[in-house]
């Protein structure tokens, strides 16, 4: 726990008076490390990120567990302190660059706002930092771009702005929620490479949420596989791709189309495996009083 910057312990969450969404999730992200969080749509991966950042939808409640960020339990804090802590120490790279920027504000302030309002920087320092960051994300003519409105920029440019904004306050933890899903295929690779580059340069702990195993192999050190809100596998990248332990993970790996075998048939996850894993989930529910 001392080595991990982010440590989630036995996190449980459910829809208010409804079914459980997260079932005893535990994972760690160490300083400077990249952990990928993998699973199908609806597996709950985004929920974990949202729980950490304190932006769960109103209908979802945390019913148990701890979230330790830099040695403090976020869930045990009063709301105002929690907000400030997250704002200072963590950041998010969102999924859709077309909706994640405020259309009525210029992009410059959307990078510097946190620095000035929450961290108390001077406007001059913040603006200089913004120019610096735009250089890091390879956007030319920084001064000019910072004065633009989001609708004047392409999707790829906007995602770079969002990445710059995420790294602005030198957070120790960044949660990237499927940051390439909404982009064109040609742009995806660039952005992925950029995120990896920034992470290495700043030494930030990165929790990378994705459903795409191809993406995982390019960025991650460690991997957590999620099924129906339950962790089914937790391994290092090498271990996982060499020989995954859980049958679901194995099927997932097998299902990924291989660049080296373009004519091979697609192998969806077999129903038997799904049933087996569902049974594990049901068993968990019974144990914890949900079944």
């Amino acid at each position, binding site marked *: 726990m001392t080595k991990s910057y982010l440590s989630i312990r036995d996190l449980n969450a459910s829809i208010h008076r409804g079914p459980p969404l997260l079932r005893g999730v535990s994972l760690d992200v160490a300083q400077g490390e990249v952990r990928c969080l993998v699973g199908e749509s609806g597996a709950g991966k985004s929920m974990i990120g949202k729980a950490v*950042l*304190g*932006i769960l939808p*109103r209908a979802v409640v945390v019913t148990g567990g701890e979230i330790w960020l830099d040695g403090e339990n976020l869930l045990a804090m009063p709301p*105002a302190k929690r*907000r*400030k802590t*997250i*704002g*200072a120490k*963590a*950041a*998010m790279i*969102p*999924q*859709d660059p077309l*909706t*994640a*920027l*405020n*259309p*009525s*504000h210029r992009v410059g302030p959307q990078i510097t*706002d*946190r620095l000035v*309002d*929450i961290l108390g920087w001077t406007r001059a320092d913040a603006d200089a930092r913004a120019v610096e960051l735009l250089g890091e994300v390879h956007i030319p003519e920084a001064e000019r771009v910072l004065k633009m*409105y989001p*609708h*004047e920029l392409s999707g790829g440019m906007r995602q770079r702005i*969002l990445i710059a904004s995420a790294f602005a306050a030198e957070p120790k933890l960044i949660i990237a929620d499927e940051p390439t899903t909404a982009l064109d295929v040609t742009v995806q690779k660039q952005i992925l490479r950029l995120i990896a580059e920034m992470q290495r340069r700043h030494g930030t702990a990165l929790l990378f949420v994705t459903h795409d195993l191809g993406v995982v192999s390019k960025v991650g050190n460690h991997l957590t596989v999620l099924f129906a809100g339950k962790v089914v596998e937790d391994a290092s990248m090498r271990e996982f791709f060499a020989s995954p332990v859980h049958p679901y993970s194995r099927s997932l790996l097998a299902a990924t189309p291989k660049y080296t075998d373009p004519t091979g048939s697609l192998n969806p996850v077999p129903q038997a495996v799904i049933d087996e894993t569902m049974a594990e989930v049901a068993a968990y529910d019974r144990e914890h009083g949900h079944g």
Partner: protein
Amino acid sequence: MAVTLLGAAIVVFVVIRVVPGNPIVMMLPPNATQVDIDRLSALYGLDKSIFEQFVIWLGGVLKGDFGTSISLRQPVLDLALGRLPATLELSLMALLFAVLIGGVLALTGTRRRQTRTEGAIDIVNGISLSVPDFLWGLLLILLFGVLWPVFHISGRVTPSLDLNFSTNFLLIESLLRLRLDVTGDLLAHMFMPALALSIPLAAVLSQLLKQSLKETLHLDYVTLSRTKGYSENHVILKEALRNAILPTLTLIGVQFTFLIGGTVIIERLFSYEGLGNMAIDAVINRDLPLIQGIVILFALIFTIVNLAVDMTYALLNPRLRHA
């Protein structure tokens, strides 16, 4: 826009000439001879055909001459422009009230959404929407004119006050000349009629803005802002409000014209010396030129308001500004 104004002019022109009752006859003493009546009719051009009268009138209007009032014996334009500032000040004050009240209710309802406070605000809105300004005016007269006589329920300004102003924009001038005693007196007179006018608009605004805000709060950029450490209040005011206001604006424009229309009866109710009050008298006195002039003036105001709303919308929406 010009077509609409022209159409309005035609409609009024035709309608009031179907009015039974000869204004000339009403003006003269009972023992007036037919010769007198004819002479006066010719003076006011009422002996010509409707078409001719319209053309003459239109020609005059384009030169800035709206004719002469039959009942008040003065140029219509002077009379109308004389009363216009009073009505404008009243309408704008009402608009201000509506924006303040509606805005506060919308923001509070959003901040406390899904609590009993929001429920109460919804009920208040519902009632305010169903009841027209006329009834609110009467209610206010009862409450603050009779029960707790705090405000004046009649007139625009206390007659005994010594006024030597150059325009009839009394409120604005009193502020500029620092005659704050006059300002206070004016406000005490204007408060209730303006409030009555504002209530229906405040309700519409409050409902719409709250709805818009609640929808905006679900958007991605708002969620992202929360992760930066901003409080709920900041998120609502700085991130959501600017975008949530846009759809509300166009509706405000239309509703504001309704508000201005409401000044006619509210001014009557509070004996406020404005354009609307004069208009009612004009109709009762069958004062054709005056009626025409005032109606066209109202139509013009409505058109200008709609234009202003369009411009404001373009200004606030960055996407339109660069288009």
